[in-house]
């Protein structure tokens, strides 16, 4: 059975199921308790599980990451929350230099099974220090996994898979997706990590998108269909490790690819996807250059119109895909 839940509700349900099932799982972060999390994701969990397992912290992002690392190292399964992804800059040492590398540095003798949830993305008028999409920083770090769900059903299944995973997982949520609704299966299920999914099939152009951009790509694909252009939308879901085969297979089929993400273009995840495709069998099937549509290389502006222009919109995706399809061989 499935019913409609919001993305935020789906994440809460996953946390609830994991906590009910495994006493090692606990929440730790700023305002995750009575406040319910800055975006209400953990609402009600403190009433159900108590302050011991839903732990409010002082504003101490380095300590939150340290607590997750140290507790995971010694038998617990923490779910840490960093209130805005921007604030993860304050946790970097523990995440990058400790959590990610401990297993390798110690000769494979330990594991660090935690999930760090954090909301990314612009569109809330919160300006440059509360709107960033920094996922690719973590993609670059061996030892970390990076997950970015785009739908409520994926958010639930991927979060449960992340909690089960024996590695540190950076779980990047999107603020604008929290209120979006979708069918979500009931009960406990996992959606495997490192498993890209075709969200809409099509023959003319492949759109590879992440997080909020998947929703925008699907909307764009609907508009393109009215023009007779069938776009295939593929969502990697896990950025690291990347399941590249479905992306390659799609591009082999369509011969054209547009990569869409919200994070700044330079050094963004799209560059990695483009390189993977260029190195793959898909290269010989390309009928047009690989194209990227991404955030402008600027801090997120406050002004409503400027903020909107900084991030790819549905019309930008439609336009870019249309041009790609119409380009001569």
């Amino acid at each position, binding site marked *: 059975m499935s019913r409609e839940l919001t993305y935020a509700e789906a994440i809460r349900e996953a946390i609830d199921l994991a906590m009910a099932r495994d006493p090692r799982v606990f929440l730790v972060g700023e305002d995750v308790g009575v406040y319910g999390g800055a975006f209400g994701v953990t609402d009600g969990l403190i009433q159900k599980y108590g302050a011991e397992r839903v732990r409010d912290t002082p504003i101490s992002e*380095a300590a939150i990451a340290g*607590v997750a690392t140290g507790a995971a190292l010694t038998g617990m399964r923490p779910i840490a929350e960093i209130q805005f992804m921007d604030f993860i800059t304050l946790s970097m040492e*523990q995440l990058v230099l400790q959590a990610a590398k401990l*297993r390798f*540095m110690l*000769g494979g003798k330990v594991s660090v099974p935690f999930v760090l949830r954090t909301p990314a993305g612009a569109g809330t008028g919160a300006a440059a220090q509360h709107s960033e999409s920094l996922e690719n920083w973590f993609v670059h770090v061996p030892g970390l996994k990076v997950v970015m769900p785009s739908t409520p059903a994926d958010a639930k299944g991927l979060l449960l898979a992340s909690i089960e995973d024996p590695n540190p997982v950076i779980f990047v949520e999107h603020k604008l997706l929290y209120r979006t609704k979708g069918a979500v299966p009931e009960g406990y299920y996992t959606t495997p990590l490192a498993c890209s999914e075709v969200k809409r099939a099509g023959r003319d152009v492949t759109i590879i998108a992440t997080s909020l951009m998947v929703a925008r790509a699907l909307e764009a694909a609907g508009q393109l269909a009215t023009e007779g252009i069938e776009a295939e939308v593929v969502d990697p879901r896990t950025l690291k490790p990347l399941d590249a085969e479905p992306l390659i297979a799609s591009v082999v089929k369509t011969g054209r690819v547009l990569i869409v993400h919200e994070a700044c273009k330079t050094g963004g995840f799209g560059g990695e996807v483009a390189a993977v495709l260029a190195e793959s069998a898909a290269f010989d099937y390309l009928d047009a250059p690989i194209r990227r549509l991404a955030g402008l290389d600027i801090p997120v502006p406050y002004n409503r119109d400027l903020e909107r222009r900084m991030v790819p919109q549905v019309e930008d995706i439609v336009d870019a895909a249309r041009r790609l399809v119409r380009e001569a061989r």
Partner: protein
Amino acid sequence: MNDAFAGLSAEKLQEMLHQMLLIRSFEESAEQLYFQGMIHGTMHLSIGQEGSAVGACAALRAEDYILSTHRGHGHCIAKGARAGQMMAEFFGKETGYCRGRGGSMHMADVDTGNLGANGIVAGGVPMAAGVGLSIQMQQQDRVALVFFGDGAANEGAFHESLNLAAIWNLPVIYFCENNQYAMSMSIFKASKVENLSERAAAYGIPGVTVDGNDAIEVYRVTREAVERARNGGGPTLVEAKTYRWKGHSKSDKQRYRTKEEVKEWQERDPVARLAQRLLEAGLLDEEALARVQVEVEEEIAAAIEFAKESPEPDPATILEGVYA
């Protein structure tokens, strides 16, 4: 046994002396092997600081955890690691504690509760709060002791971790080895407080300063902190004042301190001091001391032999251990 030995048995005291001699010998040998080109990279020697490592670990049980520092060979030995596997790690061999992947700065022996040295100053300090929380939530009869230096006490992570451990009443001992210098930066230039333990007041937890070159006193104050932590009394900040005889690492020209200062501290040698006290109290005779010294030399020689003869890691395994 009178209180001069903090209730430690003769056997335990002899074991502590053995460990201190072993640490001294291990590090002197490691340095020689480095000069001979047998070991590459760098190393941070704790010669002169053996009293704090051994005194602190003597107050812990086998199942207790430690988190260590870049100057961590002493902690590793004091918590129960074997010299052979440590030396093999130095040599980068497959039989080393970290399969040759970590080296001196990441020396760990999870089986004896050592969760690892750390290449980052204060790197283990935030994690220690997590280990303490883990112990508390699993209701284990354990404590976590995190070693760090005077340099780490000026990292922001120190503040976040101590505060968190304080408000959550975590079973963590914050053990500061104040060896007077953060690389070249004197603690007298880096802090306005006379004793770093005074900072405990900012977190509402006990703080105590001890002569780090007196292994028995270190044991006495650490035991108190450990008992407090074990009995639900929360964290303690212990400051052990000590001194590193050698430079910070292998590149140090030691322009920031005088030879006289080094000499002055060498006269307070923690190893010789413990040996002397045991001899004076009749808990050890010259013959037994000589025997311990021979044992230590043999142990180190065997460790070097083991390291030399151990296989290099198989290049085919280079990708192992990144993910579980």
